[in-house]
């Protein structure tokens, strides 16, 4: 845990050094997203849907946690081949360090989101405490997907491109831009929620933050099961392929 935390915090430090604006990017990035949405949907497309900007902000700022984590962690085994070639460590440590780093960043994003919503007239209620379990479930999902992504990229570099395209596909399929309850075909809405845990998560975030509703607990439980299965599979594979992953990361 110390190691993971040190790795993550050093990486944050290194990242802040790489960019001129340093730690400012933590808030600047979500702010810019919201600004872009405002410009495109409110001004350019003249959207008349009430609260579409906050609807988008909640969807995008939670979705991006997933997409960035999976893409960055996906590269972690290949990028750390130098260390992998020198020290025998559990290989999941490398994606986990990236995810841990992303968790720190996402805390800042959540704070920004809460502040932004409060400014937009959404007063925090007790329901907002749901953020904690929701974020925890999402984090487990992120860990499972990211570990598998890193493993696949280690098998073949080509998977990196698939994963990039896959997260773009998910951006459109997870309800960042649409509301799952507005889908007219009930079967389609059902299967979207069963097959894509992000649909349920994004919808749940909106229910608690925007619509003051308790999220659908049984749907969330299903997401828990899916995330746990992904994570368990990933951990099993990492243990099973420990040495193979090392030689693959080094020699590929």
């Amino acid at each position, binding site marked *: 845990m110390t190691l993971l935390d040190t790795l993550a915090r050093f990486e944050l430090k290194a990242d802040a050094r790489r960019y001129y604006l340093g730690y400012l990017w933590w808030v600047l990035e979500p702010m810019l997203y919201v600004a872009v949405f405002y410009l495109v949907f409110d001004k350019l497309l003249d959207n008349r849907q009430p609260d579409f900007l906050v609807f988008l902000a909640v969807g995008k700022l939670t979705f991006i946690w997933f997409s960035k984590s999976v893409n960055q962690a996906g590269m972690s085994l290949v990028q750390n081949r130098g260390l992998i070639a*020198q*020290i*025998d460590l559990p290989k999941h440590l490398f994606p986990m360090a990236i995810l841990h780093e992303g968790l720190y960043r996402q805390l800042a994003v959540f704070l920004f989101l809460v502040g932004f919503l409060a400014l937009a007239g959404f007063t925090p209620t007790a329901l907002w405490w749901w953020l904690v379990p929701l974020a925890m479930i999402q984090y487990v999902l992120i860990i499972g997907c990211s570990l598998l992504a890193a493993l696949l990229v280690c098998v073949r570099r080509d998977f990196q491109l698939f994963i990039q395209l896959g997260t773009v596909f998910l951006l459109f399929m997870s309800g960042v831009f649409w509301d799952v309850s507005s889908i007219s075909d009930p079967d389609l809405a059902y299967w979207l929620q069963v097959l894509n845990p992000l649909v349920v998560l994004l919808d749940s975030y909106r229910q608690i933050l925007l619509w003051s509703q308790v999220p659908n607990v049984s749907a969330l439980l299903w997401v828990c099961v899916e995330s746990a299965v992904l994570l368990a599979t990933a951990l099993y594979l990492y243990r099973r392929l420990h*040495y193979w992953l090392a030689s693959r990361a080094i020699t590929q």
Partner: protein
Amino acid sequence: MNPLLTLNDVGMRYPLSSSPDGWYRVFDGVDFTLYPGERVGIVGRNGVGKSTLLRLMARIFAPSHGSVVWAPNTSVSLLSLGLGFRLDLTGRENALLSCLLQGHSKKAAKDCLPGIEAFCELGPFFDQPVKTYSSGMRARLGFGTALLNRSAVILIDEILGVGDAAFRAKAREALKQQLARERSVVIVSHADFQIKSLCDSAVWLDAGGIKLAGDPEAVLDAYNAAEEP
């Protein structure tokens, strides 16, 4: 005295699509033992698997067949050139990270830092990002970190030849002192004088396996005689 490390009939192969049976055999039937305080040099042409052998010893790879057995609770660090540093982090941060990665507690890692700093002689660069270092400075940091992290065995992959003459001499001297501290060293090197001055025994690794092992002078003479055109 019980050996620290025993390699028993170790073989290593990689999948290689261009070979007839789909495999590239690096070596086979390697037997090797390392005792506490022993310093062994490994020589051989490029591509015979010297680095692979070190990685097997460091438990980074599992052998394709045979066994690699370490005495319980032996800490090993493998040192190779230019690997494993995070370029945006400073020398100090990299040294700390490296100690943590070797399994030290945060306090123990911090305790190692003054020694590493003094040994590396990087001056103010110790607190600058590693990306600003010259290759010699990186080697110093790598060497200092591995040498002073208190692991029982150091495996060195051709890094003694880097750095300036003064640092090379210092590195050799520091390695010699390790013997008194009961640390074992395995060195891969292309420089004869390093093997002769540092090692008590040498191993000549040739295509397929170990060709000769024993007294450094004898092994090097045989190796050089075979390599001369």
